[in-house]
Structures are given as C-alpha cells and as structure tokens.
C-alpha cells in the first residue's frame, strides 16, 4: 500500500507570519540540499544494502487486513504527519510496522500489563472506533481531521474520550500510545530522507567523522538554515504547546530506549 495519498491543502504546515500554507516538498527541514544517500559511495557494502532496501523495497502489507491498514494508516498520519512531504517522498511507516508485526519481531520484552504487540494494535483500533461512535456517532474514518486528532490526543493525554473504558482497563492507555508512537518514530527516523530532514550525518563507516567539536559540519554536511512554521490549530492538536510539555514533565513516563 502506498504511503498516505489523502492529502489536503488545509493540513499543510503554514508560515505563521502570513498564515499561508507552505508547499509540500521533497525535503522539509533546515538542511536544504543535504543528502545522506548522496554519500553512500563512502559507506560499507552491508550498510548500503540495508539502507537501499529500506528506500527501494517497501514491504507488502501482510499483518493488517485492508480495512485495518486503512485505519492504521490514518492513525500513523496523525502520530507522525508527513503532509509537508510531497507524495513521492513520504516514508511508508505503516508498511514497516506491518512488517515488524507480521514477522513477530519484538524489542525483547513485553510489559506484563500489555497484550502481545499485534493484539495491542487490534485492541487499540477497536477502542478508537468505539470512542468515535460514542462521541461522534460516526466511524473514526468518517470524522473530520480535527476530530480524529482530538480523539487521539485524548489517548496521548491518557484522558480518553468515553466509549472504550473496558479496553483501557485491559490495556494501559499510555503503554498503548507509546507502543504505536515509538513504532512510528522508529520507522520514520530510520529512513535516510528523515536523516536529511534533521541533519543527521547517517552511516559513517569506514570514513568516519573528522570535525567533532562545536557542532561543526563535515565538508560534505551542510549548514543549518532555519525557517518558521506551524500548523493550523483548527485542523491539528498533535503539536504540544509549551504548557502541554511542562505538564507532561510533571509526571513523565519512563523511557524505553537504549542509550547507556
């Protein structure tokens, strides 16, 4: 299945000065012209092959059925929106999540309170659908973009709209949201187009880095060129404000990454 192709102009990020939409591009972010793939001649063969496959061979949908794939595709578009990317440069997050679930790959643990990952995905969809029906009398997919975003924000905030109490008793809501968002983030930021967007140097063997201090760029990296952007508040709430972040930091959940 292709990455989302249900774009609409109202969902584009805007220039906060003019409130006009910023056009979708092949390469959002503050590092115009930076291409990690352009450096692949300096990578080792094994790494080149792994990254090539990621870019060129989108795995087929095998875990989700058609309806589930449509549903989860929309959820992913809220959790990690890509409307600022043109259609040819969207990262097929859902296909990579589907591949993980289909192959039964796990991160090496499961919280006792959580069902197996694949079951959690299906239970989560059921909960979202029940919440949509209860609060809007419509299917989740029939809601407006803002309504969908509001519903998902209520899960993110662990203050769910009514309708799925029984499911959230069986499955801790914060762990469910973290599971899906972490998967989205892993699939998106594994892609070289995302590396170009954030200015990450990418694979660096055998050449390595030579300029380590003061954030200096290697000769083949590019300087940062920032621009202002925001999103339309009547369409999106999935853009935490300073007060949201401060409130979150009062009681942050434990992280799950490996850094040291």
């Amino acid at each position, binding site marked *: 299945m292709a990455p989302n192709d249900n774009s609409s102009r109202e969902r584009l*990020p805007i220039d906060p000065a003019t409130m006009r939409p910023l056009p979708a591009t092949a390469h959002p*972010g503050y590092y115009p012209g930076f291409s990690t793939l352009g450096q692949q001649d300096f990578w080792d063969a*094994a*790494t080149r092959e*792994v990254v090539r496959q*990621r870019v060129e061979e989108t795995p087929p949908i095998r875990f989700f059925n058609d309806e589930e794939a449509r549903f989860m595709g929309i959820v992913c578009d*809220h*959790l*990690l*929106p890509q409307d*600022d990317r043109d259609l040819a440069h969207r990262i097929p997050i859902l296909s990579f999540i589907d591949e993980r679930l289909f192959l039964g*790959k796990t*991160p*090496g*643990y*499961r919280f*006792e309170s959580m069902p197996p990952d694949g079951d959690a995905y299906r239970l989560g969809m059921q909960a979202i659908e029940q919440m949509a029906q209860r609060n809007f009398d419509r299917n989740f997919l029939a809601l407006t973009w803002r309504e969908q*975003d509001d519903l998902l924000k209520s899960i*993110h905030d662990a203050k769910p709209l009514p309708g799925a109490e029984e499911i959230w008793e069986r499955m801790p809501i914060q762990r469910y949201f*973290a599971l899906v*968002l*972490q998967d989205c*983030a*892993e699939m*998106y*930021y*594994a892609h070289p187009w*995302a590396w170009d*967007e*954030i*200015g*990450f*140097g990418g*694979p*660096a*063997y*055998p050449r*390595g*880095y030579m300029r*380590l*201090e*003061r*954030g200096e760029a290697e000769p083949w990296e590019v300087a*940062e060129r920032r621009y202002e*952007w925001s999103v339309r508040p009547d369409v*999106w709430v*999935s*853009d*935490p404000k300073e007060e949201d*972040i401060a409130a*979150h*930091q009062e009681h*942050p959940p*434990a*992280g*799950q*990454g*490996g*850094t*040291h």
Partner: protein
Amino acid sequence: MQRLDVSSMQRYSPNDEIDYLVVGVGAAGGVILQRLARAGFRVAGLEAGPFWDTERDWVSDEKGSHQLYWEDMRITSGSHPLTFGANNSGKGVGGGSVHWAAFTPRFHPSDFEIYTRDGVGVDWPMSYWDLKPYYELLELEMPVAGPAWYPWGHPHGYAYGPHPMGGVGNALIKGCTSLGIGVSIGGPVAILSGSRNDRPHCIYRGFCIQGCKVGAKASTLITHVPDALHNGAEVRDRSMAHRVHLGKNNRVTGVSYFDRERNEHFQKAKAVIISGYAIETPRLLLNSGLANSSGTVGRYLMAQAGNVVLGRFDELVRQYKAPPAHALTEEFYETDPTRDFARGFAIQTVGPLPISFAKQMMAARGEWGWGMRRAMMDYNHWASLGVLGEILPWADNRVTLSDERDQFGIPIPHIHFDLYDNDKKLIEFAKNKTEEIMRAAGANEIAQEARFAHLVGAARMGSDPGTSVVDKFGRTHDIANLFVCDGSILPTQGSANPGLTIQALAARTADYLISQGTSVFHSDQRDLTDPPVRRELSPPGTHGKGVPRLA
C-alpha cells in the same frame, strides 16, 4: 579490519568429556574461555547467538542492528518495569560487549563494603584490592583509553591516551567546570585512541552501541575469543542451552542445548560455568532446578538509574559524532552525609542517534504528531547526559519463570522491579544535579527521561550459603563443579558501568580454577585461598604495553 578464521577451530563431539563447558560467550564467557584455554584446559563455549563476520553482518545503522540484541521475549513488571533488548542484552559471540558503549570505570573501594560503611545493601566477599590486579590486566587487554590521572575511587591512570571531545563532552566539561566539579575527559573507555596490533583506532562515527565495525571498540569477540580459539577452545554458536544436568554425587555432568535447527544435544563436561548474564543465568538455573538451596537465585537483580538529561543549546552540537561514551564525572559517587540517601551516582556523556532521540522526546516531553517532527528538526541542537546511579539490591527485584514458553519451548523469564526509598531519593538528587550541570553548560531548555541502564545480580556471591548463590570465586554453594561467571554474581553495583568489573572478575575466577588444577573435576573440597595473579595469561601483546606502562 581484523578477521577471525574459525575454519581451524577445535570441534569437540558431545561425547567428549571436556573439562569446562561455558554457557554464554559474552563479556565474561569470552575472558574465562580464553584464560582456561591458554592454561591448557579442554574448553568449549555454547553461545545462543551467531559468530559474527563483522564486515558482512554488522551495519552502520540504528534500525538495522537489532540482531545484536537479545530480543527473545521477556515479561517485565513492577512499579518501574525494566526494558531489555537494545537497552542491556546482547546475543552472539561477544554478547553485550558487542553493543556496550564501553565506558570502563573501576568500582571504588567503598563499593565492596557498603553494608559496613552505610548499613545498606551487603558487603562483597572480597575487597577492591583483591580485584585491583585484574582491573589493571583488563585495562591493558581491552585496552582502555583515558586520562593519565583519574582522581576518583582508588586514583590511577590509563596507559592509552584519551579521545578527542565531541559536542556532548564539551557540554559536560563546560557545565562541570563552571560549577567547580571535576570531570574526566576522553575516557575511560575501552576504545582504541591509537591503532594497536591488527586493530585500527576509533573513527568517531558514533555507532558504538550498534556494534563497532571498525574494530576500535573492545568486545571479547576481538579481544579474547581469537586467543581462546588459538589455544584450542571451541565456540559453538547458535546453541541455546536450556538445562544443566545433575548426575551422581551431587555433581553436574553437562548441558542440554538446542542447535540452530532446534535439534537437542547434550554436551558432557567435567565442570560447567554459566555466563549468561543477569537474566539468562538465573533462568537457566531455575529451569534446571539447581543451586537454589538459599532461594536467592533470581533475587537481588539490579539495574542502575540511567536517567537521561537532555539540554537544548542555541548553537549546534551534532551529538551523533564521537563515541557516546567520552567524558564523565564521579564527583558524586560516594555517600555524602549531607544528603538524605546512601551511596551516589556518576554523570556521563551519552549520544542518542535519531530513533533513540525520538523515543526520548516522546518520554521526556510528550512529543507526538507535528510536535515530534518539530522537536526532531532540532536534533542537532541537543546534548544528552546520562545519570548512572546506584540502586540497592532488593530481594523482591527478581527473575522468575513465567508460564509462557519461547521458540524452543523453554519457559521465558519474568522480571519484577520496584524502586525503594533510598533509590528514589538518589534518583531525584542525581537528576537535579545533572540538570544543574546542563544549565551551567548553557542549555536553554531541559528535558529528562527516566530510565535504567545495565543489569547485574540475580545469582549473587557471598560467604553465607544461606543468603547467596555462589562463593567469591563464582562456585555455587550447592554444587562443587558448577560455577557462575558473569554480572549476575555482583552483590552490589556501585555507580560504575559494570563491564570492566565483570571481565576482571572472570579473569580472577579463571586464575582460581587454574590454581585448583583438576581437583574441581573430582573433589567436593572447597579451597577459598586466593590464587596468584597470572599475568602471563593475557592475550599476547597486551600485558605491559601502552605509555605510560602500568602494572
């Protein structure tokens, strides 16, 4: 690049009664195999994961490196459930030493007697001075790069020069220095700052925990396993041990394991050494029903507080460059009577790559949607410092067996982990101190991710067979020819990354076994005399090298 030729490796048949069978060829298993082989014993290691061809199998890529981690299912629970996989568990020859960040501080002398000093935890059945010669040996065998003068604990220096600084180290130095806090730069890390023998120096690409394709970072795959094979050891890879067998006279006879096709085999051995680390070692003992007369197998599991404090700077940092581990302070390591908790913590550089950083932004700031995209576009402006704090050993933090089974039909482990009052106070203080340093470095926004790092304990050593699993040489109190050699024997954990201590203990256990000759194979006598230090067992070209020459 160093290549390992396994075609001429010794291969024993399951009916050969070898001397020592080591289960798990990781940080500890690699060292003890090498020592025992060099001393002339007939030894083999069973390793659940593969023998790596690092050039072919490893990639310079975050998502592509999951094969290095132990990702078989584990169930986790408690008030602060631990996470596993990439966080702390390795699979394949070299084990966790393949994907560690390679910080190698020693434990402090105080770590061996925290009950005597502070009335918390438990004392070790040995002192710092018993382990010191092995710290010195392993620091040369890996080898460790670091400053010529390291002021904390028992002050010492490193034989190989420190590494240049990355952006995160600069932040730590700046923050610490402006607050009058001492800081160690460029190490101690087990990463080559200059080429040595057939190993090249670091190229500062930042993918340490994805496995060092360069060969600059020490793992037993390149530091000890080659010498083990050269001296006649066998490493049988993709071999998942599931039961240690008890024979006549309360002595173990060998180990059952599944090969890569899931066929079951039994390898005979005169003695068995379990080196499976803090989850798989108690799991194997529990699944075998052995060595648990004290009821402590699986108990006193520890992880260190590993909170990450993230700071955003106006200027660029580019924290993906340089080894994540390259500077630290142990200024807050010891118990301070003016604080309301016992023991302390270290603060160290970390260098999350984009996927890890995105997960941190989620946990620390609640970022999602466009907020996540926005936060990630600032990736290059953030620096990350990791707390490494001592959490005390608690009986109910433990590994048990669950009702679920893995792909081989073996019961999978269940891990329960809670924090207690001293732990919580320590974490709160450490987090605040690290934030203070980050602000002093010039960060204008701070975020903090609560998490845990490393695993030790769950088969602890002690003098009392009623409250511990093994004696000070790793021999199980219950069975005279069954040993544990890995991080699971640690009674307490200090605030130092455990890798160096795990390997130093393995070298000491090896010296003990060698000093016992063949008596381990037939006698139940338990000789607790300390063995002589055998420096001649170091891999060739390591002992006495480096400038300045130490030890």
